[in-house]
């Protein structure tokens, strides 16, 4: 996300592939084995790990040198997280050898890995919400220091790296970026030799990501190796010295990411050519969804209160709501979808029908569809089959129930249709929804809503944690939907995504929604500043706002 400056340029690359792009310089993995491991910190030979039904890692060779920032790339399910968990002692490999500083090593547990000098910052933070920063750090470090002494040590390390932290704050009150700082400081206190970062920027503003990169570069300069996992190809090109690409559990290639353009990296990852989402010329029509002076008081100190939110969306238009997670997006989505009712009926209207006091089903009847951020649990019921999940939002529009009885044959054909049209890879429509990978589940969710032909579609973080292939498919389906005359609202913190999809963007900060700006008037840097709460002078898109 940091890379949005270059991101815009890369976006053009996606839409118009550069014919003279540099050919991929791949290296034969076997050549790699023969390399002398003089400054090699960690090297892995023939690592294999199988789970029931799938070989997650298939004789992987991998090497990382001191002071290197090494990218690990791959689609969801390519085996990145399995490999990393083997390094971190979470899993033990079925076969293969690990060498640590040239010596064969067995990493038996995460605690052991930390003792050896391996630190890890998790994608889904492994913090204890109800505890203070100091307690969280005390739990993870094997320091004899306690209480005030530890607090001082935390302060000195966080100051040294420019990662401001207050040791006495409760973690639940911290922003996502601050939580990540806690994790990083926690690792740094152990003075690690290898730091593993699992998709660290997916939750950061461009400015925060920038700061993180500075820290990582500094660590690398001091000789610490960084293993960097990300979907964001641009930032890998900017940050990393080496890249290893995995596909279906195998090493596809090793390359120098600065020498390869993002499109090729993406194609190496997914193993086929990538069709970038294309938007045809759009005709925007009259306002079909409008929100007027929407407010919501925070129920608790963990919630954000919404302040006087107003916006309009027209048919055929994609409207983006940018913002760092936790600035009221979840609260807003609940009010737009009807899970929480507004005080006034006029606060939300669909097709000029006021429905601020109407519930979810009434709004669905008016043509609203929404895909929440949390797929499992909110979007689908994990331990119900795909067919049963189709019922949940589709029983009305698809005509799946009659006289309180369910029409299972219709439901099955609908779920089959969703899976076919939206390329949902599954092992049968009778399987539990929770068995699908994130990308496939999201495609299923999108399909379920889109095939109901909504007039207004709201998608929150539609591609969070999803690989490039699925991401492109989801983006295309949203663009197609808008082209067919629906109003589409995308709530996201991924600027590349918003820039690629939207016609207009507003930024959410601390429960307030900024005015809307047409995408052409924005730069990633200016949205980034808005996301951080700064007041930015921009040419407001007068024509479309209100």
């Amino acid at each position: 996300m940091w890379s949005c400056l270059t991101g815009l340029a890369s976006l053009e690359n996606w839409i118009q592939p550069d014919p003279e792009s540099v050919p991929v310089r791949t290296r034969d993995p076997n050549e790699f084995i023969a390399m002398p491991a003089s400054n090699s910190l960690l090297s892995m030979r023939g690592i294999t790990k199988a789970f029931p039904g799938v070989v997650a890692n298939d004789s992987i060779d991998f090497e990382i040198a001191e002071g290197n920032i090494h990218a690990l790339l791959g689609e969801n399910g390519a085996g990145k997280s399995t490999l990393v968990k083997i390094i971190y002692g979470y899993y033990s490999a079925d076969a293969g050898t690990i060498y640590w500083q040239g010596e064969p090593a067995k990493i038996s547990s995460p605690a052991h890995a930390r003792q050896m000098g391996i630190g890890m910052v998790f994608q889904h933070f492994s913090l204890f919400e109800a505890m203070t920063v100091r307690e969280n750090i005390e739990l993870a470090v094997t320091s004899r220091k306690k209480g005030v002494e530890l607090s001082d040590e935390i302060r000195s390390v966080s100051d040294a790296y420019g990662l401001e932290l207050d040791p006495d704050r409760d973690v639940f009150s911290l922003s996502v970026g601050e939580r990540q700082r806690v994790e990083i400081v926690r690792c740094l206190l152990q003075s690690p030799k290898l730091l593993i970062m699992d998709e660290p920027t997916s939750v950061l503003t461009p400015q925060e990501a920038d700061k993180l990169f500075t820290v990582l570069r500094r660590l690398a300069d001091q000789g610490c190796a960084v293993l960097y996992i990300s979907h964001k190809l641009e930032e890998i090109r900017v940050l990393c010295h080496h890249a290893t690409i995995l596909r279906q559990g195998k090493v596809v290639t090793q390359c120098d990411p600065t020498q390869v353009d993002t499109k090729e990296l993406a194609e190496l990852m997914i193993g086929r050519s990538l069709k970038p989402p294309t938007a045809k010329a759009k005709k925007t029509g009259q306002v079909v969804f409008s929100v007027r002076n929407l407010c919501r008081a925070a129920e608790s100190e963990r919630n954000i209160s919404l302040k006087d939110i107003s916006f309009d969306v027209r048919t055929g238009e994609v409207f983006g709501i940018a913002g760092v997670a936790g600035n009221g997006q979840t609260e807003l989505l609940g009010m737009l979808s009807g899970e929480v009712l507004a005080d006034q009926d006029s606060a939300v209207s669909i097709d000029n029908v006021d429905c601020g006091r109407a519930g979810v089903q009434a709004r669905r009847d008016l043509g609203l569809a929404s895909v929440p951020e949390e797929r499992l649990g909110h979007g689908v019921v994990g331990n119900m089959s795909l067919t049963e999940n189709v019922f949940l939002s589709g029983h009305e529009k698809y005509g799946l129930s009659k006289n309180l009885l369910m029409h299972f044959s219709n439901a099955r054909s609908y779920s089959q249709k969703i899976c076919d049209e939206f390329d949902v890879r599954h092992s049968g429509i009778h399987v539990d929804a929770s068995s699908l990978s994130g990308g496939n589940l999201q495609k299923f969710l999108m399909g379920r809503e889109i095939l109901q032909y909504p007039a207004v579609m709201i998608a929150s973080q539609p591609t969070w944690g999803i690989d490039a292939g699925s991401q492109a498919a989801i983006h295309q389906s949203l663009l197609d939907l808008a082209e067919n005359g629906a109003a589409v609202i995308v709530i996201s913190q991924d600027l590349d995504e918003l820039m690629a999809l939207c016609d207009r963007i507003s930024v959410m900060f601390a429960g307030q929604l900024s005015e809307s700006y047409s995408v052409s008037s924005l730069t990633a840097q200016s949205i980034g500043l808005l996301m951080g709460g700064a007041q930015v002078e921009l040419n407001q898109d007068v024509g479309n706002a209100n």
Partner: protein
Amino acid sequence: MEAITTVELIMLTVVSAATPLLLAATGELVAEKSGVLNLGVEGMMLIGAVCAFVGALTSGSWMLGIIAGAVGGVLMSMLFGLLTLIFLANQVASGLALTLFGIGLSSLIGIPFIGLPIEKLPTLSLPFLSDIPLLGPLLFSQDVLIYLSVIMAFAVHWFLNHTKPGLVLRAVGESHDAAHSIGYAVVKIRFLAVMFGGAMAGLGGAFLSLSYTPMWVEHMTAGRGWIALAIVVFATWKPGRVIIGAYLFGSVTILQLHLQGIGVQIPAQILSMLPYLVTILVLVLISRHSTRVKLNAPACIGQIFHPNT
């Protein structure tokens, strides 16, 4: 003079009524703080009561009786730990089953001992302190389990908030996945916490059959295990408030007896309901402050931990 002794008597009975609640609730608090909801407190208390009685009667030593009570509770809790932590059974269902099992098993063990007399636990009067008027006999002339119940509540408070193992225990209850990812042995820590809960419930039962009413009667806990569970929530998982809760609920029980005794014109059944009504009322009142409860409540309570996902 007469008036003072009546007050003293009432307060003494309040202390007796509160002690089994305090013991069991303190144990359950530790188990719940580690993320395990053990609804089998009633069953563990009953087993503790019968084991303590049989132990004391057959050995003739009240000390061995108390130990037998604790061991009985621990064995029951280990059964629960085996089911829920090793075999990953549902905690609620297993806890309810444990209570039913405890009721049945304690009755079976106790058949030959019904109605047999036993000597009440001796009181240990602390020198000098017990001579203080009014407070002396109340605070410093009690039996060992009463002292222990209060000491343990403070000890648990200290353990949870001022020691590293206590911090780890809270962390395991807060997020077992995060604790596991840092490298703590989630199952082992929870098993120990559950065993502590069992030992304390067993001691609560032992107090009932050795001191409160020194004899064995079938189902003599009469729902105290459930009140202990309620006290933990009432106390929002804080040991200090467990003491307040246990004494509050103990007082209500005693009040109910005395109201019946002095002939208040309310049906006895309604008065017997009082402790349970108060429990429900308190639960409703505190759950209104949703965030404050959430902050103290272990976030992973009742959840099954699968280490490999």
